[in-house]
C-alpha cells in the first residue's frame, strides 16, 4: 500500500469532483471515503490507473450521498447527466485547491487544517493528533472551514503569498504525534512548486529543505536544544542541502527576490560552512539587510543584530540591538548572548535567567536556564 502515492493523488481527485459540479464540502467527504476504500482494496490489487480509480469511487460516493439526501433531489438529476469519469490529470486543479484552502476568509488555524486534509489527504484524526487537540474539535474546525469557502469558485488564481504562509506555518509546527508536519509541509510545497512557476515558492521550498537538513543535529539525545554553532555538522543531511541550494540558485537567477528566498539564502550560507567558525557572517548580514528592506520586520532586525554581532563583534551587535523593542520575543536571549560574547558574564547570566522566564516553550526554557547555569557555575559567587 503506497500511502505517499495515494496522498499525492488526493488534490487532483478532489479538484476533479469539484470541476464536475460537486460542492467542495461534499466532494471532500467523498474523497476521504474513496481514500479509505483504497486503503482497504488496493493491497489486494492496485488499479492500473490509480487516480482514475479514486475519481470513479469518489464520484460514486458523492452521488450516493447526494441521492440519499431527498432535499437534494433536483441537484441529483443534474449530476446524473454528467459524463462518466475517465482518466484525469490536471495540475491546474491542484493549484486551485491550494488557493481555496488558504483563502483569506479563513483563519490561519482553519487554513492549515483544511490544507492538510484537502490537499494533503491526512485524516482528521491525524491532523488532530499533530496539533494536540481532540479529534471532535478538529472535525468541527475543518467542517467550519469547508462551509466558509463553499461559496468560493475555483476559477480564479488566488494569492500565492497566502498559500506560502500556510505551508510555512505547517512546517514550523514541527513534529508531534505520528505525522511529521515538517516533512508534510515539504511534500506539499514541492507539489506546489511543480504546479506553479514562482520564485518565492521555490524560495520557501529551499528554506524548508535547508532547515530540515539540520534536524538530526538540532536536538541532543535527551531532547534538549543544540544551538547552530554547537551542532555536529556531520549529522546534517547533505542531500537535502544540495537540493535546497540548487532550488534556491535557480530561483535567485530569476532576479525576483522575496523574503523566503532571502531567508533561504541565510540558511544556505550556514549550510555552506563546514564549521561554525567558517560562517560567512558578512554575507549573512547583507541578506538580513535585504530582508529588512523586504519585510521591515522587527524579528528580522533582531536576527540581524545577532549576525552583526558575529560579523563586526558583540559591541556592534549590541548597538544594532539597542533601538529594538525589548518586548520582542527572544530579545532578552539575544541580549544575553551578545553580553556573553562581550565578556560581561554577570549581565549575561542575569539576562539568560530572565530570558528563560519569558521563554515560549520548554525546550528553550531549559536551554536558556542551562546557559545561565553555565555562566553562574563559572563565576565566583
Amino acid at each position, binding site marked *: 500500500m503506497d500511502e505517499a502515492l495515494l496522498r499525492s493523488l488526493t488534490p487532483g481527485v478532489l479538484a476533479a469532483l469539484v470541476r464536475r459540479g460537486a460542492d467542495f464540502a461534499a466532494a471532500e467527504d467523498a474523497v476521504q471515503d474513496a481514500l479509505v476504500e483504497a486503503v482497504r482494496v488496493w493491497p489486494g490489487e492496485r488499479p492500473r490507473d490509480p487516480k482514475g480509480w479514486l475519481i470513479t469511487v469518489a464520484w460514486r460516493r458523492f452521488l450516493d450521498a447526494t441521492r440519499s439526501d431527498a432535499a437534494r433531489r433536483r441537484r441529483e438529476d443534474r449530476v446524473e447527466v454528467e459524463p462518466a469519469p475517465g482518466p484525469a490529470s490536471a495540475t491546474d486543479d491542484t493549484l486551485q485547491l491550494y488557493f481555496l484552502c488558504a483563502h483569506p476568509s479563513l483563519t490561519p488555524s482553519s487554513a492549515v487544517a483544511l490544507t492538510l486534509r484537502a490537499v494533503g489527504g491526512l485524516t482528521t484524526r491525524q491532523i488532530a493528533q499533530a496539533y494536540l487537540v481532540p479529534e471532535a474539535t478538529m472535525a468541527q474546525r475543518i467542517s467550519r472551514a469547508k462551509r466558509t469557502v463553499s461559496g468560493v469558485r475555483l476559477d480564479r488564481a488566488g494569492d500565492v503569498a497566502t498559500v506560502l504562509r500556510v505551508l510555512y506555518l505547517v512546517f514550523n509546527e514541527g513534529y508531534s504525534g505520528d505525522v511529521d508536519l515538517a516533512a508534510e509541509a515539504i511534500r506539499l510545497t514541492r507539489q506546489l512548486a511543480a504546479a506553479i512557476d514562482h520564485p518565492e515558492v521555490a524560495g520557501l521550498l529551499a528554506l524548508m529543505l535547508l532547515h530540515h537538513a539540520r534536524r538530526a543535529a538540532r536536538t*541532543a539525545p*535527551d*531532547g*534538549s536544544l543544540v544551538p547552530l554553532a554547537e551542532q555536529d555538522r556531520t549529522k546534517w543531511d547533505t542531500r537535502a542541502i544540495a537540493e535546497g541550494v540548487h532550488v534556491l540558485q535557480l530561483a535567485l537567477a530569476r532576479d525576483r527576490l522575496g523574503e523566503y528566498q532571502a531567508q533561504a539564502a541565510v540558511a544556505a550560507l550556514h549550510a555552506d560552512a563546514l564549521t561554525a567558525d567558517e560562517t560567512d557572517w558578512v554575507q549573512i548580514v547583507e541578506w538580513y539587510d535585504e530582508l529588512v528592506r523586504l519585510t521591515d520586520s522587527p524579528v528580522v532586525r533582531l536576527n540581524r543584530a545577532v549576525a552583526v554581532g558575529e560579523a563586526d563583534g558583540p559591541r556592534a551587535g549590541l548597538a544594532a540591538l539597542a533601538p529594538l523593542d525589548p518586548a520582542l520575543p527572544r530579545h532578552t536571549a539575544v541580549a544575553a548572548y551578545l553580553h556573553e560574547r562581550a565578556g560581561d558574564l554577570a549581565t549575561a*547570566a542575569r539576562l*539568560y*535567567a530572565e530570558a*528563560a*522566564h*519569558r521563554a*515560549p516553550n*520548554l525546550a528553550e526554557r*531549559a536551554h536558556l*536556564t*542551562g546557559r*545561565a*547555569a*553555565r555562566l*553562574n*557555575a563559572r563565576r565566583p559567587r
Partner: protein
Amino acid sequence: MAKYLLLKHYRGAPASVNDVPMAEWTPEEISAHVRYMNEFAARLEKTGEFVDSQALAPEGTFVRYDGEGRPPVTDGPFAETKDVIAGWMVIDVDSYERAVELAGELSAAPGAGGRPIHEWLELRPFLGAHPTVTE
C-alpha cells in the same frame, strides 16, 4: 479509575527541601532533571496511567467581563501574586494511594547536586461523573 491533577507551583507551595533556583544548577543537573521528568511521563504512558501534562508560562493576565458593549477588562500580571501554577500532570489511577505514590516519585526529581528536590506538589482529585449505580 479516578483522575487526579498534580499541580506544580512556581510560588505558593511550601519550600522544597533542596530549594536552589534552577539557574544556579549546573547544566548537567538541569539535563538530569529534564530526563527524569520525561522518563516519568513515558513510564506512566506505558502503565496506562498518563492523561496529560502541560507547562505554563510564569505570567498571565486577569480578564473579566465589563458590561454590554464594552471590551473585557484586563489586569496583571501581578508581581506579588502569592500562588503561581507552573504546570500540571493529569493521571488516571486506581486509587488515592497510587496517586500519592506517583506524586511522591515526581517530587523526587533531581535538582542541585543531583539530589531530589523534595518539591511539594498539590494533588487534587477530579470531580467525576455521577456513578450509574449508587446503592
